[in-house]
């Protein structure tokens, strides 16, 4: 049977796609869209309201002062302050400028899109149904196994990155402009007599700020205070929150739409290369790499990517785990966003490290499951 692009008439524009291919694409596309859209809305509503209503100093006030506990807590902050990977970069950029150590900020940046209740819920729902055998008469639901594995591995990777980064000088990690901005705040050359409040400095531990709610003007200060201000337009903050939520929905929805369109083309065998991708699925070493590359290209939101991973039915759960952990930590759009905070050289090393480590753990995870199921 002729399928997909094989059935295109050469030299015609727009391409003459066969009715079967249209039908298949539309059915798969809509089914994934219907499944994921409510979760995107939930995530963007929460992030929109956090964006407007959450005082900027909240997050760093929650962190311990000692370095390692601070990194551990930073890896879990997404559980109470859920932010997707698109929204997290501006947040950590602001926090780093306010004195949050880079190790804590990067740990939060990598973990928050995965270790949060919305991602956990969507992963649970996406994998609901099948059982994964763990030996004779023992099996657990794929929902439980995949959700726990995803959150656990995401947390582990983020904390490891935080621990490694804590040993690297800030100037080798951050963009020069950001470093200059921080050093300027640490060694203020300007007169603070007009400011009259506490400033944010780097502590040995986590370096959170200690801002308080107070009203004042900004004459002569010229830097970010990181606490709640009252500008007399509070009545309109609900409008701002809804606008922020709509912006987030559109931002995420664009990548989600492109992602599910590509996934639907592969899912139904229409896309060129679909059979090649399928041929990689059973190769335990190559399959996780292939899905990590796919996650990088698709640039999906962590709140909805599980629905796409679940439809990649030719692939093992191990490869899907690699897709679900690597994607929220590094993809095309994040590559650009990270450059607003990090040096390109560090991003390259980070990408390489994430790819190798997540791939290796996923392969080992799949091998362990297989050996338990087939003793």
């Amino acid at each position: 049977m002729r399928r997909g692009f094989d059935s295109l008439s050469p030299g015609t524009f727009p391409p003459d796609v066969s009715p079967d291919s249209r039908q298949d694409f539309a059915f798969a596309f809509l089914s994934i869209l219907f499944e994921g859209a409510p979760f995107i809305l939930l995530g963007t509503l929460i992030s929109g309201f956090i964006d407007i209503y959450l005082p900027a100093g909240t997050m760093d006030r929650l962190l311990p002062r000692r370095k390692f506990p601070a990194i551990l807590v930073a890896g879990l902050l997404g559980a109470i302050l859920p932010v997707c990977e698109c929204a997290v970069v501006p947040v950590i950029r602001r926090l780093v400028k306010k004195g949050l150590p880079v190790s804590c900020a990067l740990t939060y940046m990598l973990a928050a899109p995965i270790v949060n209740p919305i991602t956990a819920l969507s992963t649970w729902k996406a994998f609901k149904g099948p059982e994964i055998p763990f030996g004779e008469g023992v099996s657990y639901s794929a929902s439980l196994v995949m959700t726990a594995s995803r959150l656990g591995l995401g947390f582990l990777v983020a904390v490891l990155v935080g621990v490694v980064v804590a040993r690297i000088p800030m100037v080798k990690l951050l963009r020069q402009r950001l470093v200059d901005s921080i050093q300027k705040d640490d060694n203020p050359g300007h007169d603070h007599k007009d400011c009259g409040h506490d400033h944010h400095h780097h502590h040995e531990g986590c370096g959170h700020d200690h801002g308080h709610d107070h009203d004042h003007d900004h004459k002569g200060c010229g830097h970010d205070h990181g606490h709640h201000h009252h500008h007399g337009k509070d009545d309109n903050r609900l409008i701002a929150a809804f606008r922020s939520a709509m912006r987030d929905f559109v931002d995420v929805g664009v990548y989600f739409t492109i992602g599910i369109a590509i996934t639907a083309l592969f899912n139904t065998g229409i896309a060129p290369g679909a059979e090649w991708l399928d041929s990689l699925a059973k190769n335990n070493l190559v399959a996780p790499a292939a899905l990590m590359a796919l996650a990088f290209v698709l640039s999906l939101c962590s709140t909805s990517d599980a629905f796409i991973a679940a439809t990649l039915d030719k692939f093992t759960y191990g490869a899907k785990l690699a897709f679900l952990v690597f994607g929220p930590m590094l993809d095309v759009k994040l590559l650009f966003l990270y450059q607003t905070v990090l040096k390109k050289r560090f991003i390259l090393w980070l990408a390489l490290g994430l790819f190798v480590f997540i791939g290796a753990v996923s392969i080992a995870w799949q091998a362990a499951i297989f050996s338990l199921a087939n003793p």
Partner: protein
Amino acid sequence: MNPKLQRVLFSLALLTWAGVLIYFYATGRIAKYLAPDFRPLVMAGGLGLAVVGFFNLLTATQEASCGHDHGPDDTHDHESLDVHPLAAFLILLVPLCVGVAWTKDAFSLGSLTRKGLMDTPADASSLILGAGMPQLTKELIEKQHPKNADGYHSFGLMELFFSAGDPEMRELVGGMQVETEGRVIKDPDAPVPTQRRLYRLFITCCAADSRAIPIIVRFKDEVPQVADNTWMKLTGTIRYPDEGEGFIPVLEVDHAAEAPPPPEESFMRSNF
């Protein structure tokens, strides 16, 4: 782009998404796309999108403050996007509208073939899929599969399919007179001209993750002259011969009749 125009465009995009979600839920077409657990979420998501869309549309011209300062180098605002607003608007709407226009609420034969319709039923009885099915025992069979008026035990097609992968079940169910239903389709690899496939879709969450689950059916005399994908109720004797590819479920048909389509496809936790 003018911020007010951008808000109006995005509000319209959200309202369109809301309309599609609510329409598919309200008309019941959603049953073709999603497992039962997910359907109420579609309605809730549609209503939520409608609220956000309408709110932003009605307040598009109003001034609003986010209430916090952004610092000297922090250029972020709460409405800018990674992509051009008009491009975002088109990306949100064009594929959705094309999908709604093209969908027939089902996969074509080509896509079903990719999803396992023409795979050997012996291969398809995978451990993971089978582990999701309830364990069958003789007591359970007698309790859950009462005989119909003609003396045939009523079986779900998926039970017959998965029983082929279990030696005990093959022993237990093989030779039993059964009744089952599914969609009939021609079998291009049939060794005999009276052979067809009877299948249902096996869906865990959404149609995109569905698998076609087929068994072999062999008619004793004439094959009913029905179109591919016609829903039929078949009665006959189930056997599990090994014809070189492993044990496969084969129904030797005594009687066949067209049947009305069930209200929805098969799902992992019900209707199998």
